[in-house]
């Protein structure tokens, strides 16, 4: 039986987008009762979306035999980002990030939808014929992207909180924002986890690419550029003790680079 799963992918993206809206609206509830209710709804909506997405990926793998590794790459990335957020949210209350994270997952889900699952040179099928180096590359890149996504979200929120504090805008919802020190700490942890994983992904990816066409693509160069920025930020933070807005900006820029690389695969 031939089932078209593409609409289900866009359905997943819509669910994540809706969860993002619920997260954002939950930040502007006036009283405790309303706040608790909307907090519950936003949390449950993300859990449902993640459950739906996992099920969809399994169905897709079973149905297509894993044709189109890029779709799997983005699908897994979306899942990894969502799960990482849920894990962090259990330890540190960063609910205000839920909106940004859900939007990011929705974006990855759209990328995933864009890839129709057609077998191609850049998107081989996930079966026994798929090179081990590529599988390792995808696994490392997915994990690295999840860590960097968390790191970038923290940086974005850091800049928002810092701007509010600077401009003396203590508007409603501020109470629910985490402190600058918490955001900075999680940002650093994200970098510490993501950087080695992404480095591994780049090394394995390079080995795979040079073993094939041997060409240096633009995406590869952008990836390398992002990696350099991450390396620089990490080095500055660990040795020179860099903190605050500058580190947050650079982390964001590096992540945008990674997203551009991801988008270039998606819309190719």
């Amino acid at each position: 039986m031939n089932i078209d799963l593409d609409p289900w992918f866009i359905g997943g993206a819509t669910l994540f987008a809706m969860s993002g809206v619920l997260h954002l609206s939950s930040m502007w509830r006036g009283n405790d009762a309303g706040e608790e209710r909307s907090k519950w709804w936003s949390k449950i909506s993300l859990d449902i979306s993640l459950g739906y997405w996992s099920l969809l990926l399994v169905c897709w793998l079973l149905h297509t035999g894993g044709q189109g590794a890029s779709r799997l790459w983005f699908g897994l990335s979306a899942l990894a980002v969502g799960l990482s957020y849920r894990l962090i949210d259990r330890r540190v209350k960063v609910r205000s990030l839920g909106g940004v994270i859900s939007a990011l997952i929705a974006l990855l889900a759209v990328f995933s939808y864009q890839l129709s699952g057609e077998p191609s040179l850049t998107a081989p099928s996930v079966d026994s014929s798929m090179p081990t180096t590529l599988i390792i590359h995808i696994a490392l890149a997915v994990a690295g992207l999840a860590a960097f996504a968390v790191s970038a979200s923290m940086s974005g929120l850091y800049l928002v909180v810092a701007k509010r504090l600077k401009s003396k805008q203590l508007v409603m919802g501020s109470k629910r924002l985490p402190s600058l020190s918490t955001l900075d700490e999680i940002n650093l942890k994200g970098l510490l986890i993501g950087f080695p994983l992404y480095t591994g992904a780049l090394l394995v990816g390079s080995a795979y690419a040079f073993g094939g066409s041997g060409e240096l693509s633009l995406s590869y160069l952008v990836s390398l550029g992002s990696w350099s920025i991450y390396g620089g930020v990490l080095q500055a933070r660990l040795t020179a003790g860099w903190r605050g807005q500058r580190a947050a900006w650079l982390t964001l820029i590096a992540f945008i680079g990674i997203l551009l690389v991801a988008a270039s695969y998606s819309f190719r």
Partner: protein
Amino acid sequence: MSSALATDHLIVVGLNHKTAPLHIREQLALQGESKAELIKTLKRRLSGGTMVVSTCNRVEFYGLSSTLSLGEEGLTDHQVLEMISDVVSERCQIPIDELIKHFYIHRGDEALHHIFRVASSLDSLVIGEPQILGQLKEALEESQSFETSGDLSILMERAFLVARRVRNQTGISKHVVSVSSIAVRLARHIFEDLSERTALLIGAGEMGELAARHLHQDGVGRLLVANRNLDRAVALAEKLNGSPRALSELSELLVTADIVITSTGSQEPIITPEIAQAALKSRKYRPLFIIDIAVPRDVDPRVNRLENIYVYDVDDLSQIADENMAQRANEATIAEELVKEELLKFHRERAQRNLGPLITALRTKVHTLKTQEIDWALSKEVVMNQAQEKLLRQMGDRLTNKILHDVLTGLKSLAHHPQSEDVIEVVSTLFKLTLPEEDLSPSSEDP
């Protein structure tokens, strides 16, 4: 007592920040033995539940006793005021006339409404402040310990439920309004755990000291106190449990500290962009939060433009306090509605509780009358066979049921009517019904 409407016997006499100046409130602020004596004396005079609430902004006497009811047997407002003033005057050395001038009196529903409002912090100087609920609870516990609370305990528990609902369903207590609390709240936006942070207090201003105290209470790790005069720094540091420093060390201190509270009398800024920039570099751009409470300012406004330094002056803090106060005022409107709703709910519940016994008593009375009259008829020397006697009894049943049906349906429909308590009173008087004492305890469906 017939269907005793206990809130009719409720009375509140008191004065607060709106009705009495500070010196009167100060004289009335009773503590320990004298307060205990006052409660006991009131209990003896009123022979019912009594309670005394004494805070810096209010002194109130709550009474729940049949002596206090209005009407032929009860006391008038003036008599109640005189009686309480007499008791209070003895202990506080304030003339009775002076006390009566500042006292207000609330009775019945109005008194209950007032208690609900006080518990919900709607009658406080700073609307929404959380302390009043704790103070009321303490007052009740005190009264219970002297065994003077009586049924007041049940009404007070109800007031606490109302206060909790107001707190949970409105944002009345969300926005902090004191400058020192705002400073601490802001610090928490920057530093998650204050126990790992160092605070530096520069100068010896009162507000600065208060903010430092707040930080200390919130568990700031270390407190440094700097002053031009080292002796004053030492004295203040001892008071605040901190370490004294000379103001000449300011550049080094700015590297160590995470939170700076400054309130010196200097005419020129003591923290300039140059000093701050140098400190920032040495502290490897770790965030620095500066609260400048001095007028004129101790921190050059340009310092706030530097990355990772957040400067708040007294105007910024006051502006936040004003905005938060306005937010509270908005929430207070919603809270007032909630309190009114709760008052109505309270009356409905009581009416429902009282209707049951009223209906039972009415039915019993009518059926007893019916039985008595049939028995009377049968006792006369009229020959009736079994069928005729049965018919007579059936007729009696049908007649009473038909009469009762409309009356009881009408009474049941009154359960949600605001004046249902008056109707219960009227019906029980008309039919000379004796109802059991009412139970004021909250129903299980209460929040």
